[in-house]
C-alpha cells in the first residue's frame, strides 16, 4: 500500500486532476460572483437551506470556489484546496439528492442560471458530481507532492 501511495506518477495524474477540477470551479464561480442575486434564487429554489442562510451561502460560496479553483490550478496549498472542493461536492450532492428525492424540477445552477428546461438536475448530475468528488479525493490523498507553484518556489528557496 505504501508503495502505491509513494508512486511518482501520482504527481502527474494529480496535476491533470487539479487542472481539470480547478478549471471547472473557476468556470463555475464566474456567474455566481457576477450575479449573486441570481445565484441566491438558485440556492433558494433547492429549498434545502433555511431562508436566513440563503444569501450568506450565495455570497460566500462563489469566492470559496474561486479560491479553491485558483489554488488547485496554481498548485499552492492544493491538498487543502482539494479538501475544500471535496466538502463542497458533498454539500452539492446532499442538496441534489434531497431535491431529486422530492421530485423538484429545477435548474442545477452549477455554472449559469438557466431554466429547468435547459439545465435540469437529474441522477446524471449526481454521477458527474460523484466523479468530481473522486477527483478531489484523489488530489487530496494521493497527490502528496503536488506539481505547481508552491513546489517550484520551495525548490528555488536557498537551503540554510
Amino acid at each position: 500500500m505504501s508503495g502505491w501511495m509513494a508512486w511518482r506518477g501520482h504527481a502527474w495524474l494529480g496535476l491533470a486532476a487539479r487542472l481539470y477540477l480547478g478549471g471547472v470551479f473557476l468556470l463555475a464561480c464566474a456567474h455566481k460572483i457576477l450575479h449573486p442575486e441570481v445565484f441566491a434564487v438558485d440556492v433558494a429554489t433547492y429549498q434545502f437551506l433555511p431562508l436566513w442562510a440563503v444569501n450568506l451561502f450565495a455570497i460566500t460560496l462563489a469566492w470559496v470556489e474561486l479560491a479553491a479553483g485558483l489554488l488547485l490550478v496554481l498548485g499552492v496549498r492544493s491538498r487543502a484546496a482539494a479538501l475544500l472542493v471535496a466538502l463542497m461536492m458533498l454539500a452539492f450532492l446532499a442538496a441534489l439528492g434531497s431535491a431529486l428525492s422530492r421530485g423538484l424540477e429545477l435548474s442545477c445552477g452549477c455554472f449559469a442560471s438557466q431554466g429547468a428546461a435547459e439545465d435540469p438536475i437529474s441522477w446524471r448530475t449526481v454521477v458527474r458530481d460523484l466523479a468530481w468528488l473522486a477527483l478531489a479525493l484523489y488530489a487530496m490523498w494521493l497527490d502528496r507532492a503536488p506539481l505547481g507553484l508552491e513546489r517550484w518556489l520551495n525548490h528555488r528557496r536557498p537551503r540554510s
Partner: protein
Amino acid sequence: MHMGIIRDAMLIALAASGIGLGVNALMPDGLPLVADRPYDLFVPCPEPLGTVEALEPADPRLRAPGTLLVDARDEAARKAAPLAGAEPVPFDYLESVSREAVTRLAGSGAPRVVVAGDGLDPDSGRELARELAGQGLKNVFFVSGGAPALLRRATREGVAP
C-alpha cells in the same frame, strides 16, 4: 489526514468568505446578508396539460354562436383594452387555475372555449388554454397573437373587439 491540511482549508475558506462579504458590502446593489422575505420560487409543478389548437383572429369560429371567449390577461391589461363579452380568468405562471374558474367555464355549457392572452412569448392565452384542457375541458382553443391581435383586427375592421 494532516491537521495542517484541515487548518489550511479552514483559513482559505474563511479568507475567501471574508473577501466575498467585503466585496458584497462595497457593491451598491449588494445582497442583504439575510433575505428579508422568502424568495418567489418558480418550480414547475407537474400540472396536467392538454393539447390545444391556435385560432387566427380572423377565424370564423371565434364569432360563431356558442363560442366562449376567455381573457387570460391581468386586470390592468383588461381595463386598458377590454375584450367585450370575454370571461376574465387571469393566468398566473406561479399558480394553477382555480377549480372554481374551471367549474364556471364548464358550467357555461359553451361548446367551444377560446382563450385570448397577452400574445407574448410564451403566450398566457396558450398556457391557460393548455391548463384548461388538462383539467378536462373539451374544445379549448387559444387566439394566435392573443388579445392584442384581436384588438388590432377589431380596430382595422371598425367593430367592437
